[in-house]
């Protein structure tokens, strides 16, 4: 005899904030498409329980200068496109990027040490070449970040860029730049619920509306601390759904950067044969990491390999349709 089992449903009071990256001409920018994330009233993909109004977005990571330390698997995949930021941006959009994560590595004092003005020019050129929203990262050196990101903020006023990373030690200048020129910020904290919340409070205290703050809880790749990231993201999301206002920011995960860091994705020769095909190993590592973090509440995945972009797009399609 068939038995009807009613699935238990959790009733949450809280909702993740809806955040839009990019601004169309009507909104004061020049983007042809924008990306809205957040708005969930339930845990990831539990469509029967609450609403998930926006699909997780895919941002493709690229650099202003050709990367020096990337795996050959990645360099081969991007080939000549990676030699120039504009061509890289166009190729990424062709491959299905919802947004671009532009890393201004060339401004690093120990790399090319490019000036803030040059960096701003690069961002302007990318904005001119593609229509998707941008997430812009400085060289991740506090002093230079401040300089570069403020120049970028000014040059791209009104575009609703996401500027990163704001950390507890240097959030003030970047937040001030975002406030002045109509941008968003990425608030990054080291895998801790309280620290994530504290930084959101500090940023909010400066007067930046919370619908302009993304949080990056710091990603640990598969085999390299993913369980910590998973657990912290899950706790942040549970707190958000339980109504804790300062944890209701959509989460961005730098999956590509983290999962391409380690030996498994970088070293071809002299590794155990059990590790299998080198060309496939890196993308699989990235996919597995992305897949897990999607289930812990990631709203934006920052990816590196074209194959990962394709697979994650298909995966999200399925997860959103069920």
């Amino acid at each position: 005899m068939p038995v009807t089992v009613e699935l238990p449903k959790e009733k949450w009071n809280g909702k993740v904030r809806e955040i839009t990256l990019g601004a169309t001409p009507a909104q004061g920018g020049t983007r042809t498409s924008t990306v809205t994330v957040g708005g969930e009233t339930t845990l990831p993909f539990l469509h029967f329980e609450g609403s998930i109004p926006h699909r997780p977005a895919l941002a493709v990571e690229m650099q202003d200068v050709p990367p020096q330390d990337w795996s050959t698997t990645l360099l081969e995949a991007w080939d000549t496109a990676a030699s120039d930021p504009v061509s890289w941006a166009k190729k990424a959009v062709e491959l299905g990027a919802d947004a671009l994560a532009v890393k201004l590595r060339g401004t690093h004092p120990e790399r090319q040490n490019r000036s803030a003005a040059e960096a701003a020019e690069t961002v302007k050129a990318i904005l001119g070449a593609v229509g998707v929203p941008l997430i812009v990262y400085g060289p991740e050196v506090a002093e230079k970040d401040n300089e570069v990101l403020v120049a970028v903020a000014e040059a791209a006023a009104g575009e609703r860029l996401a500027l990163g990373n704001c950390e507890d030690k240097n959030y003030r200048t970047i937040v001030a730049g975002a406030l002045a020129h109509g941008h968003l910020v990425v608030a990054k904290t080291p895998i801790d619920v309280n620290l994530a919340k504290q930084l959101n409070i500090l940023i909010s205290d400066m007067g930046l509306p919370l619908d302009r703050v993304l949080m990056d809880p710091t990603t640990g790749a598969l085999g390299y601390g993913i369980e910590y990231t998973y657990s912290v993201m899950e706790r942040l999301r549970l707190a958000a759904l339980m109504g804790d206002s300062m944890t209701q920011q959509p989460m961005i995960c730098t999956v590509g950067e983290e999962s391409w860091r380690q030996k498994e994705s970088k070293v071809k020769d002299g590794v155990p044969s059990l590790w299998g095909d080198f060309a496939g190993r890196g993308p699989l590592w990235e996919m597995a990491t992305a897949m897990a973090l999607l289930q812990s509440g990631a709203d934006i995945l920052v990816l590196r390999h074209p194959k990962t972009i394709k697979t994650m797009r298909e995966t999200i399609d399925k997860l959103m349709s069920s």
Partner: protein
Amino acid sequence: MQEEKTVTKEARPGNSKAIVIFKPFGTVANVEVGTLLLDAAQLAGVEVNSPCGAQGRCGRCKVLVEYGEVARRSNPKLSSADESQGYALACQTVIKGDVVLVVPTKEEIQRRPAIETAAEKIALPFVCDWRREPAIQKLYLEIPPPSLADNTNDLDRLKRELAKRLGIKDLVVSLPMLRGLSRTLREADWRVTVVLDMRNWLPGGSIPPRLIGLLPDDETSTNLGLAVDIGTTSVVVYLVDFITGKVVDTASAYNAQVSCGEDVISRIIYSQRRDGLNHLQRLVIKTINDLITELAGHNHIHADDINEVSVAGNTTMTHVFLGLDPKYIREEPYIPTMTVPPRVSAGDLGLAINPNASVYCMPAVGSYVGGDITSGVLSSGLFQTDRLTLFIDVGTNGEMVLGTKDWLITCACSAGPAFEGGGVRHGMRAAAGAIEDIWISPQNYEPTYRVINNISPAGICGSGLIDLLAEMFVTGVIDKAGKIRRELPTPRVRMGDHGPEYIVAWAAETASGNNIVITEADINNLIRAKAAVYAGLSVLCNSVGAKLADVEQILIGGAFGQYINVEKAIQIGLLPDLPWEKFHYLGNTSALGAYTALLCKDMRAAVVDIARKMTYLELSADNSFMNEYTSALFMPHTNLEASLR
């Protein structure tokens, strides 16, 4: 003319010896080559400060080698300039030959004018109102002398008289007491005052009272006891009159052990040195004896008339006071020798009072919740209340107890020395010259401050630091994470040699002629200290399923507690955000508990019962503590919603 003291030490054949002269005292020590300067000083009876317990970490034992050869272990606390001038760290330097040392004269330590020194203000805690019954009783006896017809021996004769007067069947008499018995009785012509310790004697019970004194004539008009609080930093004594039940006088001084380490951990480390434990014990006994001498002089009494002592101290202090090795208190799993100390005779400890007097130490709960806290639970009345009560003793260790008359749970968190001025660049103890109150103008960020004894400021003490942190927070000099806002339009905020800083007092205003500042690193240390306390409170409440808001009253004890400004402490999130009327200052709860136990013999049994009843929560084994701690590393704390509710 300086007094010359010479201390010699047995030389083993073949070992060369050296003469060490300590200036300006002129003391001379004769030691083996290879002896540590600090050991030589100890041998010669010269006090050299060693706040870190001779670990070479604090650099405060600096001495000048005026003549002779020494071997220094290199140490970051000694700059090459210091070294070229001849300075050496006494705990890191050994003697190679005859040397002449100059020991810096100890900084004058002045006590903050103590608020509760007026003895008449010390009230007997309410818990004792219904049963004031000291254990020490004096009785004047006129004993019929022996004769050929009545040839009972002296002791039985005394017992016979006591049986007649008090119904006492037996008496415990120690051999030393017995030795003087016959002579005293006869010299006093059989008119004597007996001093009886009835502590263990229950009416109708089987444990007999103890004879602790036999005095010629009627001496029943005075009968004194002593309540002692042995703090890690200071020692407080109350002279108690058993006849009136009142505190006759009080005195306090720095615990002389401070020169061997400022916190319990440093003391334990010091105790492991050769003769270290004995030295520490001698120092605390000397501190107490000096206070007894002071009280005896002021009040025209004989110290010999002090017939009982009640001592409250943390577990380490109690161990050292009794000469017990505190080593294992510091090592996981943190086990003390005992929690209920036995009765000890004053003479055995070297206390300069009636040598037969009993000395009782308050029982502990564990290694980090000691007799000072059980004493506080006793004197605060926490163990008798129906209302959910939180008792906090804030110091280097923050100890807290939550409960009612039916249950008690306790924990200890290591707040670090920040609230006592340690680990803060211009922090200092609450002594003359310490800034103790600060206000900052929200318009121009200019501070106004008050200094103890109204002299030029030399530093900032714990209460001043809490004030400063709160003022900087509410005026926006720092953000909620404790970062200084460098963009503020005031010259007081600037980038200093040690990172961003706020200038509290300009060089021209200060005693040293240097700016008094607070740096971001200092602020971090303070936030960590307050976070440890707050996290401890949160975990303690969570562990019994209560919310901080459920707490009906908060009792603040401990020597430092009375100086905490509740408003400011709430602003920075040191104390939970509850209505002010829930907070009560109790003063020195540790000394008050010792006093209570001294006066009411039943209270000694009660406090042992309290100690047994208290559940000890080990925070290092509690996995929610780290989470609560990180949450509290923010001002007032991260859980904003909870605080608004």
